[in-house]
């Protein structure tokens, strides 16, 4: 490895300029990652008890009626529905917003971006009250429209709670996908559509043979970023249901939080977090294998 002194001047200064950012990344990301990995081999309360237990924490999280394994399945279910909904909704809205003759296009774009600007905490609390069984405005509207006779206990039933957190996550997250796809649509050469029109292609053919293939790299990037983001999401589910009722919405981030901060079993929580890290790493590697160098 070349020493810093033997590098060309412009290379040397490049490394010097990225050094502060690298240091911050190292302190804020690399160090906690390695420390968490280290803790996972101990039974510890991080203060006065450090018992080296080798792989016992990893074995425990997969043994018996494992809450962690159940939370992985819930997370997979939650993430799949949310990400798919984001892609479908984002794509649909982006195609509509990309139409040249759409009136008030800028106004619609601004309105559709609004959910993205709210902090997740605010979003969770807002929708939690909207869906509240007793006082929620959603039940009120449904009853006034005679769609339901009795109040629906959205957050007190397993399916209802899962639906509500998914809905909230979809509402919060679709603008990012919308923006990414819209940018991708606007980079597709207009000539391709003209040629398709000349050749007699209809709207569906144009969409499936021109639009989607040209959006492939954007869709893949959106898919991967969205999957990793929502797989480990915490605020929305915690504030709305705390993982309940029972374990209906007990995603993996909540299971880890409860293991750490309610049971004070930091070793086991760290082991769970390491597993989640490798799951997210696996997703990233799948992305890398699906996308070519040219597309990157």
């Amino acid at each position, binding site marked *: 490895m070349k020493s810093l002194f033997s590098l060309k001047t412009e290379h040397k200064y490049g490394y010097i300029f990225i050094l502060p950012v690298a240091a911050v990344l190292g302190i804020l990301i690399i160090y906690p990652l390695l420390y968490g990995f280290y803790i996972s081999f101990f039974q510890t*309360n*991080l*203060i*006065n*008890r450090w018992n080296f237990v080798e792989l016992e924490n990893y074995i425990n999280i997969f043994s*018996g*009626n494992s809450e962690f394994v159940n939370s992985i399945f819930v997370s997979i279910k939650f993430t799949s529905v949310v990400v798919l909904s984001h892609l479908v909704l984002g794509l649909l809205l982006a195609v509509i917003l990309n139409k040249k003759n759409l009136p008030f296009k800028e106004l619609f774009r601004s309105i559709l971006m609004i959910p993205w600007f709210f902090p997740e905490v605010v979003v969770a609390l807002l929708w939690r009250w909207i869906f*509240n*069984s*007793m*006082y929620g405005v959603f039940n009120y509207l449904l009853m006034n429209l005679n769609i339901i006779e*009795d*109040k629906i*206990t*959205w*957050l*007190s*039933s*397993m399916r209802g709670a899962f639906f509500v957190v998914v809905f909230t996550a979809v509402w919060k997250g679709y603008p990012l996908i919308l923006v990414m796809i819209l940018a991708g649509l606007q980079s597709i050469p207009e000539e391709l559509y003209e040629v398709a029109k000349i050749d007699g292609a209809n709207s569906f053919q144009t969409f499936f043979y021109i639009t989607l293939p040209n959006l492939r790299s954007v869709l893949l990037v959106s898919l991967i970023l969205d999957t990793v983001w929502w797989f480990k999401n915490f605020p929305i589910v915690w504030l709305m249901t*705390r*993982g*309940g*009722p*029972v*374990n*209906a919405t007990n995603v993996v981030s909540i299971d880890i*939080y*409860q293991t750490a*901060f*309610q*049971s*004070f079993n930091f070793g086991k929580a760290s082991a769970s977090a390491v597993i989640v890290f490798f799951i997210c790493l696996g997703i990233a590697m799948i992305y890398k294998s699906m996308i070519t160098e040219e597309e990157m």
Partner: protein
Amino acid sequence: MKLRSNVKIVLFTLVFVLFSIMSVQAVTLEVMDSVIVESPEREALLQIIENFEEENPDITIDYQGVPMNDAYAQIPTLATSGALPDVYLATLDFIGTFEDMGIATDLRDVFSQEYLDGFNQNSLSELTVDGKVLAHPFFVIPMGVLYRIDWFEEKGLTPPETWEEFLDIANELTEDTNGDGSVDRWGFAMLASRDGSGGSRFIQIFRTFGGYELRLNDEGEYVTDVNTPQGRNAFEFFTELNTEHEVVPPGPMEVSYGEALNLMATNKTAMMVTGPHSIGGIIERNPELDGKIGAFPLPMAQDGGKHISVLNTYGHAINPDSDKKEEAAKFLKFLVNDESALLWNEMTGRMPTRTGLLQSPEVQDRPDLAGFVEAMDYAEPLPTVSYYSTIMTDILPSAYQSIIVGQATVEEAAERAEERIISLIEEN
């Protein structure tokens, strides 16, 4: 000569002034508490702090608020980073964890035995682990049932002794009051949330059926009664209040402490399992209810049950690494002196912990506290083990929630809860 003596005078004066400033320089005591985020507790506490700082100008109190349900995630986090405040809240469900982590001073080294003997000893024992007094009691909130005196009088009802009588009353008070065909008032505000607010209340209802979620057997080992007939009866009765009798508003699993107070304050429910601290919160939300709230001890199961209460002592621990233990002790003593404790009780309903004050007419003769005063006669301690919080905030709430949503039968839920508790006992 005259100039030199003038200089001496000026220098001497400067030194004197500097010395005076240094000797009265205020010490800042950091205190973390959860009651200051609630109302009217905040107003009462600020008044007490003001009084303390007037009497002790050399001590400034820096009060930090944290919601109760988040406090015990925050305290260990601060402890691991060495950023614990000088004084912080401590309750019986986490005192075992404090001992395990070594983050609470043994107050026998800070206060005299005579002073500690002046506390209600049940209250003190709730903050004591293996003989070590790990927190200074501030107030107690013995659990009972708050109820609407006016609605009871309307219907000619009297406070129940048994859960069967309680259910009859709840049925009687569940009705459509405005004739629109929908029930708009329910007998009971059930806290079935998956947190300490729901779990702690369920534990006390559970015990009134004759079983214990965790207890020491004759061999000195911890055992659980969750999967005994008494335990299963408790689960069945509690969950059927919603699933069968429907004396509970829809969505009980969304109801934690704040939501239940709202239900009482908005005239939606007639009864609520809670402590005297809720009276102030309800009246704060709806001043028209002043004088209309009463209390009675938790009913008991007809067969083999007993009245139960828990004092739910709330106290303050002193950080072992704090260099202001003397100031902390001064402040904690001030919190529970006669004037402060009676002001606190008058404004919030939370009851004093000093024996003399508990017997005072100001506490004993308050009609809204009468039921809680009676409940104190049935007080029993909760176990102070490090894993108790998991039982209270996770295992038991998961069990009753699984029954309510129909995911498990009573037997299945009780068996699963028993497995998890036994696993915890064995791990520790």
